[in-house]
């Protein structure tokens, strides 16, 4: 096996198919660790990981914190919204602060695209992007890939339909890149105002009609709709969104599954009955999230130097 050559995980666009496969394979071992009587290993003992969250998050932060603890790393969290940063402390000051604390790795979430890249250029610690603006959310996409691969055994040839606000969704972006790199075909569906420019160049097919989009899909990936998009006039009303793009009934294809990155607006983009149906992998995504993040932390923080 070739050595792991990335110091940071900033996005899926910089990973090859082989590298993604490596992460998923390692995650499989960590998934097993989580089923042991003592579900932790000392692989990152003595390492200090800082969770740097500039944007409110509960799930991703919890998942990372748990992953770090399961690897026996010392983990601490700094969470601050970007608005209080604006009051005077610049990102650069934060960087200096991190350097002084001798942190081995940071997990960063920020509302501004490019912040993980910015940090990776200026500090020695390894950087994991936990979501930056509308850019990427690589750990979410990797856990989605892992969940789908675990369920279907392979990703090649799968059909995934991603439904909702593609334009502002880093989850959608990373998943489009990830699934298409792994040989799945991606269809996106949502209000045309929420479909970004050049989506077809990312190997995704755009479909207006929800029925057509999910007809042959193995995976229906539902995105959370942000209320502020409606307030900004990007679609006329929640009622209209629910009617045109909400997932409310079983689709035709047998064996298909439902995924959602959470948190769900129940009854809006997804009905409760669909979210809790037997073919919903939404809670499984939470479990696989810890295993996948353990694998990533292990790959980036496990050895002292990268080649």
């Amino acid at each position, binding site marked *: 096996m070739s050595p792991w050559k990335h110091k940071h995980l900033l996005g899926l666009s910089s990973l090859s198919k082989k590298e993604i496969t490596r992460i998923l394979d390692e995650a499989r071992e960590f998934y097993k660790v989580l089923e042991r009587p003592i579900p932790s290993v000392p692989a990152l003992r003595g390492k200090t990981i800082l969770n740097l969250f500039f944007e409110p998050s509960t799930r991703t932060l919890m998942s990372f914190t748990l992953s770090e603890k399961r690897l026996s790393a010392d983990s601490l969290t700094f969470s601050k919204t970007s608005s209080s940063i604006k009051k005077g402390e610049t990102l650069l000051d934060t960087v200096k602060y991190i350097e002084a604390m001798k942190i081995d790795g940071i997990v960063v979430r920020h509302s501004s695209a*490019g912040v993980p890249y910015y940090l990776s250029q200026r500090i020695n610690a390894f950087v994991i992007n936990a979501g930056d603006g509308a850019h990427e959310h690589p750990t979410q996409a990797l856990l989605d890939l892992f969940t789908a691969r675990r369920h279907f055994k392979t990703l090649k040839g799968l059909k995934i339909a991603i439904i909702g606000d593609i334009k502002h969704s880093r989850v959608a972006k990373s998943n489009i890149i990830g699934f298409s790199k792994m040989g799945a075909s991606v269809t996106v569906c949502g209000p045309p105002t929420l479909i970004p*420019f050049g989506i077809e160049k990312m190997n995704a097919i755009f479909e207006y009609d929800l029925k057509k989009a999910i007809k042959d899909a193995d995976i229906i990936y539902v995105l959370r709709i942000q209320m502020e998009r409606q307030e900004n006039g990007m679609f006329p009303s929640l009622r209209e969104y629910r009617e045109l793009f909400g997932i409310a009934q079983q689709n035709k294809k047998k064996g298909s599954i439902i995924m959602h990155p959470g948190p769900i607006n129940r009854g809006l983009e997804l009905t409760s009955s669909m979210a809790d149906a037997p073919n919903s992998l939404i809670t499984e995504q939470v479990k696989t999230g810890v295993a996948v993040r353990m694998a990533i932390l292990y790959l980036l923080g496990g050895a002292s130097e990268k080649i």
Partner: protein
Amino acid sequence: MKKFKSLYIKNITVYDIKGKKKSPQNIYIENGIVSDMGKNTYPNADIVIDGEDCLLLPGLIDIHEHLREPGEEHKETIASGALAALAGGFTDIYAMPNTKPPIDTPEKVKFNLMKAKEVAYNNVHVIGSITKGQRGESLAELGLMAKYGTTVFSDDGKWVSNARIMRYALEYTKMFNGLIISHAEDLSLTGNGQIHEGEISTLLGLSGIPEVSETCAIARDIDLARFTKAKLHITHISTEQGLKMIKQAKLDGLKISVDVTPHHIFFTDENLTNFDTNLKVKPPIRSRRDRDSIIRAIKNGLVDAIATDHAPHSKEEKELEFVEAPFGIIGNQIAFPILYKRLVVPGIITLKQLLKLLTSNPANIVQLKNKNKGSIKKGIEADLFIFNPNEKWTFSKETSFSLSENSPFFNKSIDGKIKYVILKNQLHIF
């Protein structure tokens, strides 16, 4: 800076907007006037310069600069910005009025002109605001500003979105043959846009600035210019579609002119994948297709001028999250060498064409008093610079005169150096 009575430059190749002069030439300047060109020698002149390997070129004019004074002197002052321009061969520069507060009264125009006379060696001209406080609501005292110092007006980054006010501005300035410069940008379409809206903005997750934010504004401005029969200058055009509209307007006989910036000639949005805030500008660096159309338009003469849009910002402001960093980059000191290398060396345009874009054409647009801008001939005021196209240097803290460092060329090697600038009876050595 050295003052001189007589200056003798021997053995130099001379180019101006008419092309290459018989070479090599010996030039003699006395009392600020080019008094002889040809074979005569003047070994007893106060200063003698050997011009071997160098080009003698006419002083340049930049009709779009931000000198930040008053209000943001930590980014740039008239003195520092003008010196950087001088080191870049620009002997005439036009300062945009979006200072803090904006230059929107004849008093402020007069004061800045006075200040410039005191601190700058080159000719610093002031552009006045179109509307009071650049708020786009009512006309500033355009007539008085014209009387006391400037006939060129712009609200620059704050495009006059109220079409009625823009119509009045175009009509009103006709009485003194003034010029309105439009930074064509419909801000409602720009929104929170950061970079050109395209595949790259999608990939990077940065909000896009669509090309229509420029073209919708150009369309309206062109139509107002047609209706009012006024002159209109569109600055730093960035889109292929916008250029098409300008071309049609010119064919229709409108008094429309247009400039482009060096950075829109150099870069495409593909250069932004590293989230470099030193490529965050307005209008944004656009697609390869737009960039190529700009180069074609320069080649075929559709573009009238090149202006730098020199826009200093402090390091603290640019070292921020991409969305927090301000728009704009500096560039007056390096514009000529990089344009020479990008456009003249590979033969895209001739040096004569480049000089026109940087001297006589913009001088005509703003109606510069000096009607000899771009020419080198006997009997005119010395307004020249000496350029060594083969000398390499690094654009850095040590060599830059600007107070700011926000340039994608900062700490990069530059081919071609401006060695001397001669303006009237002063010699500046760089």
